[in-house]
């Protein structure tokens, strides 16, 4: 009797393990197919990152909006981490008021384009009062003005194969977001802050605003946008310069 129970137990355990393993394999394939695996999924922390990113993407399938605030809630103090780029080309653009600055869009687009600051300002204006939280723990609320990234992607004719939008900046940082964020109505290319031109330390002339993620995803000092199908061959393959410094690619926390 005892032996029978033991054998049954062993078989049940083996079947459960087999079921669990094949379940995991199926889950992994489904997750890859529906774009639920972040580019920095490797290594010790990959499982946690993948669970967070996948669960957030499943939670936000209906394109939920980040909280917006009243004008009287705008913070009087809006700190930054460090000065604008000291590189000569950026400093020269800054001195000339960004008159000869251009934003290039290339990659998987039918009409590779180059926009001046004036072009961007002529596009439909989008304004939001949103919360910006630094990964360090501090935060502020500000009003941001710009053009929806989706408008610019449509103008350039983003391809249906596109999976990520990559951003390059004058401070040598680079960043990328998935298409769920790229087409999201609150994802802005912001040139204004609190009713004025975007101040240099906040990312002049143009920065990304991505209010459903931590502040560091809202990359500053934009120079170029590239639409891609895969992040494997972009930079070190981890999706942005953040993982190189030890910070996660997805920052919806």
């Amino acid at each position, binding site marked *: 009797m005892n032996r029978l129970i033991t054998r049954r137990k062993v078989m049940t355990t083996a079947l459960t393990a087999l079921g669990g393993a094949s379940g995991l394999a199926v889950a992994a394939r489904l997750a890859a197919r529906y774009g639920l695996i972040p580019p920095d999924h490797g290594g010790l922390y990959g499982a946690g990152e993948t*669970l967070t990113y996948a669960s957030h993407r499943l939670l936000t399938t209906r394109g939920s909006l980040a909280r917006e605030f009243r004008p009287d809630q705008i913070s009087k103090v809006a700190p930054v981490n460090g000065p604008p780029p000291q590189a000569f080309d950026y400093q020269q653009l800054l001195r000339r008021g960004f008159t000869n600055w251009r934003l290039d869009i290339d990659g998987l687009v039918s009409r590779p384009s180059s926009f001046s600051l004036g072009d961007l300002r002529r596009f439909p204006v989008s304004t939001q009062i949103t919360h910006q*939280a630094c990964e360090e723990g501090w935060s502020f609320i500000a009003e941001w003005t710009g053009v929806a990234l989706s408008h610019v992607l449509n103008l350039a004719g983003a391809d249906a194969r596109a999976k990520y939008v990559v951003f390059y900046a004058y401070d040598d940082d680079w960043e990328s977001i998935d298409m769920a964020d790229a087409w999201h109505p609150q994802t802005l290319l912001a040139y204004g802050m609190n009713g004025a031109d975007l101040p240099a330390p906040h990312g002049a002339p143009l920065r990304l605003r991505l209010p459903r993620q931590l502040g560091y995803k809202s990359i500053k000092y934009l120079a170029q946008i590239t639409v891609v199908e895969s992040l494997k061959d972009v930079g070190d393959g981890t999706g942005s310069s953040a993982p190189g410094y030890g910070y996660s690619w997805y920052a*919806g*926390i």
Partner: protein
Amino acid sequence: MRHSALVRVTHWLTAGSFVALAVSGVAILLAHPRLYWGETGAVGTPSLIDLPLPFMLTGQSGWGRYLHFLSAWMLVLTGILYVLGGLRTRHFKQDLFSAQQPAKYNGVQRMTYGAVVFVLFPSMIWTGLAMSPAVTSVAPALVTALGGQQSARTIHFVVAVLLVGFLIGHVAMVAFAGFSRHVAAMILGGEPPATEVHT
């Protein structure tokens, strides 16, 4: 009265992930050891608590957050297993809420355990989610009910301190009652020693 396999396995998974959460939590906190109330807060605005700790910007909040979420997932999944299993085996009913005779734990112990499992840990999960700009885009009430994102961060810290306090008390009581025999009982599932002091 021996610990069930469910209690033993989830106990050590919880212990491991809790220590990882505490260590990574401190790593994240050290990037900005100031706490605020309301939606926003930064250097240059009034704080609620200025912790006597240095501002450390050496990148430890990066691995800190990676580890924090990995261990948070581990703890939440363990917690689900523990609560479902505890309901099924009547662990909560028999050992926490209506002590059978002879009682396994005294009143203070039962109240403390109940508060840790059903108040403090859920508060940590709630305040943790309330800091997520993605999660609060789906469920804004998670953060507005607490008074704002910085309030959520402050409550998260205070409850974490309470949980670390519980851990210290718990280990001290186990040490007082016979450390190695109690630890052995929690690992192997044997009969714990007669002096029943668990906290």
